[in-house]
């Protein structure tokens, strides 16, 4: 059996690779046979000529024998494929304009899809690296009723985490984690980088053995303060420490904590953190106690952790949710008891459930993820438009090839072979388009990734296998989609009719098909253009939306003391020194301290308002503390009463300024000025008697200002003067400038840094940088829709142009006859152009109907913008009509130039 297989292989290999030699040998062998036969006959007395003729007759048709012998070789199919391929290449190179058009169109369609697939895959589908038992690992989403509405939240306090760890039965893992930016290193080497703060059991869910040293142990999470240790991320170890193994045992300052490096994480490990790849991992307890002091372990004031849980094997999600909810209700009751509030579990109905590790699939999916899905849909539409266009180009080309193909059919080339050649051509173009598409995704695609993926996420999305497979599949699909059209055409070709008519007899179905493609393109373009318009309007509205402070004019400066401890007086002196230094900087208009930084960190404290027992249900109240210049610096307007003055000192009348929304939420229908508010600024200490905080008089009402998102619902701010905020404010400032914020940020950094003691470190950024991510999704949507919409418009116009041009060429004689019979050139022009606009009208109608259908879901990702704006619809329809007229005009003018005499002669 093996002998036979071997001999087959050897024979076929030779036949394929040494094809010319094999052919020559066959010639030689047959020639030898004929010679022998002729010699024999000659010896019998025939003349030389007669002997040869007889030998040939006896042998039969030499070429047929050769063909039969070749068939025996079994490589005919391969040979034909190769010959088809080289024929394809030659013909594609000969028609360069066509080839470039098709490849470029496909590259756009495929490149866009490869990029978008990579992004959506990352945001919604691909499981985190090294995660085990992916199906059982979840994030946790909490919800409760607040002011008649369900509020959703996934951040919890440390005591909540320990409550869950104690009470949950259906989970074999309950872990907490958080990622935040912190200063790492000391002195000159200090850099800001994301750090991951995790409970050691997070590692149990992953298959991530350390590259070096060890991971955290239970001892690193032991009460009260855990172990001050750190594990370096692999990349950070390579870049900052050059991959030195001696790094173990060294000390690294992380935020306020001096930690001992005990290990290096394996490559690619980021936990389930989607946003930013961390540089350093630290144990949660140690970080929290360094950052907040011992109160972190008992206070329910600081919601900063996310939960990661793993269901026990065999536990359903329903059972897990019931278990979670029960634990959450117990914890809620414990919190109320600690605060001394009444038990309100029944009315607030706290509940909890497990969700995907992908934030994008959870109830609080970021706008980015939702916009990315829309963009994915748009990318598919662009792909379809591109395919339609390529099919159109093929059809237009088929006109010119019809005669050629009919000729080849007449000469006996099988229809199958012809169809195979067309398939080969399409696949070649599809694959070439795919390769260019990947190049495009690699280069231009990174811009899209920056817009949609969270900051710092790995940019090399196209390198993974899945994206490659999808790209390849898209290329084949494009090839196959565009081949169906030409191949059916070849199958239908009526040889004699085409040869007789000189290649002009276009079939009716073909024209209908081409018209259908144009209608589809116009419809899809209309949808994309509507999307583009509403996204642009939405982005503009978002930008123009007043945030309640002058973001563009503000710079944020934060001094990170990093463990350098100053006494109360020293801290106040330092703050005053910095404030003075900043004020002295040219271009600085005003400066204020700030306890909360909009879109960055927010402080909240319990409120007690006489006569309003349900204050907690009336909204979410953010505490802001500021210097006398606060309102002048931020630009937040005082609507009634007054702001802060230098007279609001520690021993003076306790005052408070509330936001307009807060005034209406807390004292509906009454004047807020003069009311009393007690702010619970000291965290409760278990067992200690609570002192009632002082009554602060409302002296001013300020406009609402956004602290966490562009359009907060039921989120309000109240303001205390810094001297009257007993906890004190960490040294962070908002600086108002009339100059360029980026330039002044650098100048301020240089001015403040020399004033700082020890390892303290100043970080200065334009506030606009902190707010920018809020707009990113809308801007991405606007940019992508506009680019894709314009692309689709151009493609549709080209498709229409080629259709009309083709029809004009077909009907040249008819136009000639019409002119001869008295039609004016204007009549001819109208005839041609109206045919084009009619098709586009049908397409636009269908497209706008489709746009109405998707309007409602689209509106959920827009900012105060209707997706059914009649003005937008009208504009889109008009611009498509104009494009149609322009596209049809050139061939229309050509039609008017037909010489009637010429046309009649040809008839």
């Amino acid at each position, binding site marked *: 059996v093996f002998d036979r297989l071997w*001999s*087959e292989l050897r*024979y076929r290999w030779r036949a394929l690779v040494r094809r010319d030699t094999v052919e020559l040998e066959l010639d030689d062998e047959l020639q030898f046979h004929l010679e022998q036969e002729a010699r024999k006959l000659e010896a019998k007395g025939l003349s030389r000529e007669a002997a040869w003729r007889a030998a040939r007759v006896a042998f039969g048709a030499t070429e047929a024998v050769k063909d039969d012998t070749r068939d*025996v070789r*079994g490589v005919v199919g391969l040979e034909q494929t190769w010959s088809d391929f080289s024929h394809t290449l030659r013909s594609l190179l000969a028609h360069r304009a066509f080839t470039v058009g098709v490849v470029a169109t496909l590259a756009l369609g495929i490149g866009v899809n490869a990029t978008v697939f990579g992004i959506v895959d990352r945001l919604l589908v691909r499981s985190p690296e090294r995660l085990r038992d992916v199906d059982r690992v979840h994030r946790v989403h909490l919800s409760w009723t607040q002011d008649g509405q369900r509020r959703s939240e996934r951040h919890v306090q440390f005591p909540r985490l320990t409550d869950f760890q104690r009470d949950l039965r259906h989970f074999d893992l309950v872990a907490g984690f958080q990622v935040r930016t912190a200063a790492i290193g000391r002195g000159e080497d200090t850099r800001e980088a994301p750090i991951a703060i995790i409970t050691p059991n997070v590692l149990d869910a992953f298959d991530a053995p350390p590259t070096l040293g060890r991971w955290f142990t239970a001892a690193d999470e032991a009460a009260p303060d855990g172990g001050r240790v750190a594990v370096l991320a692999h990349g950070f170890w390579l870049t900052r420490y050059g991959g030195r193994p001696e790094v173990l045992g060294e000390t690294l300052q992380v935020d306020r904590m001096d930690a001992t490096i005990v290990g290096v994480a394996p490559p690619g490990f980021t936990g389930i953190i989607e946003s930013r790849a961390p540089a350093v991992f630290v144990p949660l307890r140690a970080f929290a106690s360094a950052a907040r002091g011992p109160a972190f372990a008992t206070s329910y004031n600081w919601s900063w952790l996310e939960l990661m849980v793993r269901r026990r094997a065999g536990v359903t999600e329903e059972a897990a949710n019931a278990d979670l909810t029960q634990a959450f209700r117990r914890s809620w009751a414990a919190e109320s008891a600690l605060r001394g509030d009444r038990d309100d579990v029944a009315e607030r109905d706290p509940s909890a459930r497990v969700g995907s590790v992908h934030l994008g699939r959870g109830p609080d999916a970021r706008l980015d993820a939702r916009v990315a899905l829309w963009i994915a849909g748009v990318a598919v539409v662009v792909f379809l438009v591109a395919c339609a266009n390529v099919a159109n180009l093929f059809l237009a080309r088929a006109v010119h090839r019809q005669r050629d193909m009919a000729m080849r059919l007449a000469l006996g080339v099988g229809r199958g072979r012809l169809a195979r050649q067309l398939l080969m051509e399409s696949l070649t173009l599809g694959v070439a388009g795919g390769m260019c598409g990947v190049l495009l995704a690699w280069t231009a695609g990174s811009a899209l990734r920056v817009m949609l993926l969270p900051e710092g996420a790995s940019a090399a999305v196209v390198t993974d296998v899945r994206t490659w497979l999808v790209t390849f599949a898209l290329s084949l699909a494009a090839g196959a989609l565009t081949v169906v059209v030409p191949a059916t055409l070849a199958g239908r070709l009526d040889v004699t009719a085409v040869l007789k008519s000189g290649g002009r007899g276009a079939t009716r179905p073909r024209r209908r098909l081409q018209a259908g493609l144009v209608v589809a393109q116009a419809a899809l373009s209309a949808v994309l253009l509507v999307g583009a318009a509403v996204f642009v309007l939405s982005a503009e509205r978002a930008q123009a939306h007043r945030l309640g402070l002058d973001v563009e004019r503000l710079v944020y400066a934060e001094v990170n003391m990093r463990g350098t401890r100053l006494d109360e007086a020293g801290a106040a002196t330092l703050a005053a020194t910095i404030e003075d230094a900043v004020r002295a900087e040219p271009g600085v208009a005003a400066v204020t301290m700030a306890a909360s930084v909009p879109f960055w960190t927010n402080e909240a404290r319990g409120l007690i308002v006489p006569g309003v027992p349900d204050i907690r249900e009336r909204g979410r109240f953010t505490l802001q503390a500021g210097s006398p210049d606060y309102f002048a610096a931020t630009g937040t307007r005082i609507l009634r009463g007054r702001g802060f003055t230098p007279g609001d000192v520690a021993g003076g009348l306790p005052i408070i300024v509330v936001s307009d929304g807060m005034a209406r939420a807390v004292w509906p229908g009454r004047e807020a000025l003069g009311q009393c508010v007690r702010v619970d600024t000291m965290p409760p200490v278990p067992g200690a008697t609570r002192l009632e905080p002082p009554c602060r008089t409302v002296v001013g009402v300020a406009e609402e200002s956004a602290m966490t998102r562009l359009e907060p619902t039921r989120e309000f701010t109240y303001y205390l003067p810094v001297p009257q905020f007993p906890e004190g404010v960490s040294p962070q400032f908002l600086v108002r400038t009339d100059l360029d914020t980026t330039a002044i940020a650098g100048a301020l950094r240089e001015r403040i840094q020399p004033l700082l003691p020890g390892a303290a470190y100043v970080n200065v950024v334009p506030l606009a940088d902190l707010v920018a991510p809020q707009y990113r999704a809308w801007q991405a949507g606007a940019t992508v829709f506009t680019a894709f919409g314009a692309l689709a418009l151009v493609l549709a116009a080209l498709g229409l142009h080629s259709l009309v041009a083709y029809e004009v060429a077909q009907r040249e004689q008819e136009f000639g006859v019409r002119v001869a019979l008295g039609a004016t050139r204007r009549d001819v022009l109208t005839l041609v152009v109206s045919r084009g606009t009619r098709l586009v009208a049908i397409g636009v109608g269908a497209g706008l109907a489709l746009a109405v259908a998707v309007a409602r879901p689209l509106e959920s990702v827009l900012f105060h913008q209707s997706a059914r704006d009649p003005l937008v619809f009208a504009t889109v329809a008009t611009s498509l009509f104009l494009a149609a007229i322009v596209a049809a005009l050139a061939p229309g003018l050509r039609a008017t130039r037909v010489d009637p005499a010429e046309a009649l002669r040809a008839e």
Partner: protein
Amino acid sequence: MPPDKLGLPQGTLDLLILKALSLGPMHGWAISERLHQVSKEAVQVPQGSLYPALHRLERQGWIDASWGASDNNRKAKYYAITRAGRRQLDTEAESWRRLAAAVQQILAMR
């Protein structure tokens, strides 16, 4: 084809070629001559169909081909039977004999 010459039943050409080659290597023309002579000119091998058959047998590994010099010192392609070819010849000859005997018996029926 003259009426006194026999056409070959389908598939027997391979058997005849293998038998001829079992007596010693020879080139294509010689095979056709040998079959012609041995069958007392009763069997007419269509000369053209010989070559596809030879190539098929070569591909199957039953015969080997090599270039050598002919009697009149011209380059010619010689075919030789392989061991696998001999085994194949035995099987095919046996089944042919059995078929012929069976056909003979049927024809002798009364």
